[in-house]
């Protein structure tokens, strides 16, 4: 798998990274190393093999549909970068 500048820019956009031109060669190499290693999996015989999502193949445990909300609003607000009256502050989205 060859990774090029266009791919890196596209993936960086999806992953929410701001990349500069000088970062691109490093990221190309970084991604290529991983994807080249991954390519060796092609030799594995996986026809009709069910993908394995959980090592124990267990189904999700369902909890009772009961609210157990802990009132920790102040505690969680206190670790946020910026809040106002208990709300998370971000730059204006709608003018």
């Amino acid at each position, binding site marked *: 798998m060859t*990774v090029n500048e266009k*791919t*890196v820019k596209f*993936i*960086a956009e*999806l*992953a*929410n*990274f*701001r*990349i500069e031109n000088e970062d691109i060669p*490093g*990221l190309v*190499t*970084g*991604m290529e*190393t*991983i*994807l080249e*290693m*991954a*390519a*060796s*999996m*092609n*030799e*594995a*015989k*996986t026809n009709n*093999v*069910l*993908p*394995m*999502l*959980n*090592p*124990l193949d*267990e189904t*999700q*445990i369902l*909890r009772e549909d009961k609210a157990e909300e802990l009132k*920790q609003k102040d*505690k*969680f607000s*206190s*670790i*946020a*970068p*910026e809040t106002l009256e208990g709300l*998370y502050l*971000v*730059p*204006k*989205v709608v003018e």
Partner: protein
Amino acid sequence: MLDQTLTEQLTSLKNGDYSSYELTDAYIKNIEKHRDLNCYISLNEKALEEAKRADLLRSKKEMKPLLGIPIAHKDIFCENEVKTTAGSKMLENFLSPYDATVVSKLREAGAVSIGKTNMDEFAMGSSNETSFFGPVKNPWDESRVPGGSSGGSAAAVSARLCSAATGTDTGGSIRQPASFCGITGLKPTYGRVSRWGMIAYASSLDQAGPMAISAEDCAIILREMSGYDEKDSTSSKLQVADYTSLISKPIDRVKIGIFRPLMEDLDTRVGKLLEETIRELEKNGVSFVEIELPNFGFAIPAYYVIAPAECSANLSRYDGVRFGYRCDNPIDLKDLYQRSRTEGLGREVKNRIMAGTFALTAGYYDAYYNKAQQVRRLIKNDFVEAFKKVDAIIAPTTPSAAFRLGEKSNRQKEMYLQDIYTTSANLAGLPALSMPAGFLNNLPIGAQLIGNYFDERLILSIAHLYQTQTDWHLTRPGKKE
């Protein structure tokens, strides 16, 4: 007292040879003395208070299994109102609002929390060099790495800067540093220990486990940290065995599997040590048979698709809004997200997020992610077949002893191949441990035992048997002849 194992310390505390306060204080002084090792990201300022409380409980005969034992936590475990960084600038000032289940369980068992150990950023690394807080040095040779990602925990146990430590293992992050630092480290079966409050890297692979001097020490900690937790729906409801009392019971007719191709590809000096380990166990009644693991060679490629894919999803939460690093003066929301993530995360983490994001994109999902999950099943099936013939499997933990700081930091593929012997247990979800098995040029090296699902007891018992016949695990840095 710092030369003792955790098990011996419990006896000494019980006999009144010294107090928990004295023990904790001795570790704090030793931590100060070895600050250059960079094992800890932060120390618990209340550790001595906790130790005093433990002594008080002991005086009132209110006993607990780990009462007064100073334990360090890898800085990936949330501890209420304690800085929890995951080795990242992104969480440099993050005060956790709650305790991880592992932390609360060990506290309930009476342990004193002594501090938070250094680690590769978000557990992504095999040398501890990706930590935002600088690399940890190997106590056996300070020009070398301690391994990773639980490098701070391994080095702290090895240098006697705590009685034991917690670690996490996604692809070998407990076992590889345990091997490099000459300690015992166990990755339990997936689901044995709750992941609640353990900062996620790759959720279907991550598992917490104990790191200590001996298998006996690991058994005590494992018993206390294991069990079902309603806050982690992947934790198992299977009853936790009393590993501590079972560990000394004789193990009859145990048959261990060897996958020969692994031994053949190995550095001959590492292979020789492993052969000696096998001979030592044979002398003690353990038999060995050859097994086949035909898909073992696909573990690294499958791991380096699945782990990055899961990390790309898990780390999308770090966006500079609710907690963690936020960039200065964002011009709009997109700029806030992008610059906070770009400035807050390190190079290796970005590499893995990028590769994982790619593997999950439409058009490549089947070729990479789906294929890796199919390969994962093949690897698991191989182990299931092997365990019809044997009770456990022996393998190397690492291809070599600890390498030099900086030696592989720009050789990404070589670094990834550090995990060549360890990732398969994570992919299959099996328990595996590394125990000290000798020295190469005065550097420790471990042997790996892989057990069947939820049979931590047996691999701990085999390691314990080995440790009753050898003293590699008791040799400490600076004290080896």
